[in-house]
């Protein structure tokens, strides 16, 4: 009896994990399949039930070869995604950490009211802010430019709320001590605050990157030129036409977020653990 219970628990654990990672494993397996196997699999008109097939008939890099050497448009779209995402992430992390420090550790009149406004902005969905954003970008002549995605993304309230949580639990004593030693506010920020919120910064980088990497709505609305669309939109277009490369494209698209994730996954829950110790 004593052995059975842990065994059942571990089987359940493996089942849960399998459900979470299955689609990704499936993607990767399919990306090594030869084209005829993929098109057979994705032939939705055949009147028979599909089987889940994880093993390629023949392991081949054909799909990757097509994407990288024959179909440069997908590499261009990939590059579009990079241009839109990287500056947004850098901008948001910088601006948020500055503001989060002020909200967490400095006293000024109206602080809590202002922060409440930020929370409301945080919760409002993209579709609501798209309309106001569109009006501003239109009057600034920024539509049809990558800045139309980068600028509003940079000023998202999300980073401020997340980093404020991490900063608020840094002890006031260390800040006070530094002040007595004659450190200025900016020095306190760079020497005391930033090193202690490393896990918060990594978490924000990851979440912010994923969010902007998946951008779909804004380019559809802001850009007339389909050549500027990021890979996230292109991938939903090719699903019905380009059987040969679809899985390889999908895998290529998930590599950057997965890389950041493997680098930072140990830190991802730390800001939240601190957050509830009050």
């Amino acid at each position, binding site marked *: 009896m004593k052995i059975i219970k842990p065994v059942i628990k571990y089987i359940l654990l493996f089942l849960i994990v399998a459900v979470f990672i299955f689609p990704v494993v499936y993607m990767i397996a399919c990306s090594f399949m030869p084209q005829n196997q993929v098109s057979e699999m994705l032939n939705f008109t055949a009147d028979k039930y599909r089987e889940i097939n994880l093993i390629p008939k023949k392991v081949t890099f054909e799909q990757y070869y097509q994407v990288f050497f024959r179909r440069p448009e997908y590499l261009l779209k990939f590059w579009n995604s990079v241009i839109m995402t990287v500056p947004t992430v850098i901008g948001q992390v910088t601006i948020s950490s*500055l503001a989060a420090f002020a909200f967490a550790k400095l006293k000024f009149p109206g602080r809590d009211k202002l922060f409440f406004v930020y929370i409301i902005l945080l919760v409002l969905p993209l579709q609501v802010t798209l309309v106001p954003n569109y*009006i501003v970008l239109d009057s600034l002549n920024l539509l049809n430019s990558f800045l139309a995605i980068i600028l509003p993304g940079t000023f998202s309230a999300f980073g401020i709320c997340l980093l404020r949580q991490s900063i608020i639990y840094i002890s006031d004593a260390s800040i006070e001590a530094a002040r007595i030693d004659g450190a200025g506010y900016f020095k306190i920020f760079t020497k005391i605050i930033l090193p202690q919120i490393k896990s918060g910064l990594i978490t924000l980088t990851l979440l912010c990157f994923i969010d902007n990497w998946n951008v779909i709505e804004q380019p559809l609305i802001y850009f007339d030129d389909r050549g500027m669309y990021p890979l*996230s939109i292109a991938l939903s277009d090719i699903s019905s036409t380009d059987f040969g490369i679809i899985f390889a494209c999908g895998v290529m698209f998930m590599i950057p977020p997965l890389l950041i994730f493997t680098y930072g996954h140990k830190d991802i829950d730390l800001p*939240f653990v601190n957050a509830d110790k009050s």
Partner: protein
Amino acid sequence: MKRKRKEYIVALLFILPSLLGIMFFYIVPYIISFIKSLYASNTFVGFNNYIDLLNNDIFLLALKNTAVFTIIAIPLLMVVSFLIALFLNSFNSISSFFRSSLLIPVVVPVASLICVWQLLFDDYGAVNGLLNSLGLNAVEFFNSEYSMVMIVLIYVWKYCGFCVVLFTAGLANVPQSLYESAKLDGANSFKLITQITIPMITPTTFFVFLMEIIYSFKVFREVFALFGDYPNKNVYFLQNFINNNYYNLNYPRLSSASVILSVFIILLLLAFFIFERKHSVTD
């Protein structure tokens, strides 16, 4: 006194970049768009645009679908992720492989997985194959009320792991001594969870709820990736409505739709605030 003033100025400097951006890209435009919602081709019409919108069948359909999705998906995700968190917490130690694998769905981009969903949920897809071999009727996931079921399932799958991580972090902060003393009083494990765990992790629950709302609006990305601009009427959400109205740039309609959507969300938040307050008073 002097230091206070200096701190005030410094704080302002730290916030300034963000404040300018927020003012410029969110708050001022938001006010403009509210004002625009009161006009129709440059004449003031008061709340007429709103009345028109509330008589628009497509808008009402979108509003209904969004409400149905929110009411089903958010509590479901909350319960499922809380249960998995409790389950993971019952292990003495757990390899970081398991925890990381839970976060994979959030990390993997929406667009990468479209093909997998199609293979699973197609009329002749794997799920229907399974239903068939169990002797059940096949389900048209892409063209019936089951579209909503599919979207809810994808939403729960995608964000569950992230919520589990937040919940386990919250559970780790509950002092063990509380459980021990309750056990001495003879409380069973169900009582331990309802009387100690749930009240103690309320701040976490609130944060999870906030994240779930934010993410529930992002489910539009899956809808778009799977169905394109015009999904079937079961999964036509407010975001589809707003997106499609961009193509004809109907400003009054767009702005009033987004004001209504904001009110909807703020009410949802308020409801949860009140619920949370009541809950913590009784405990």
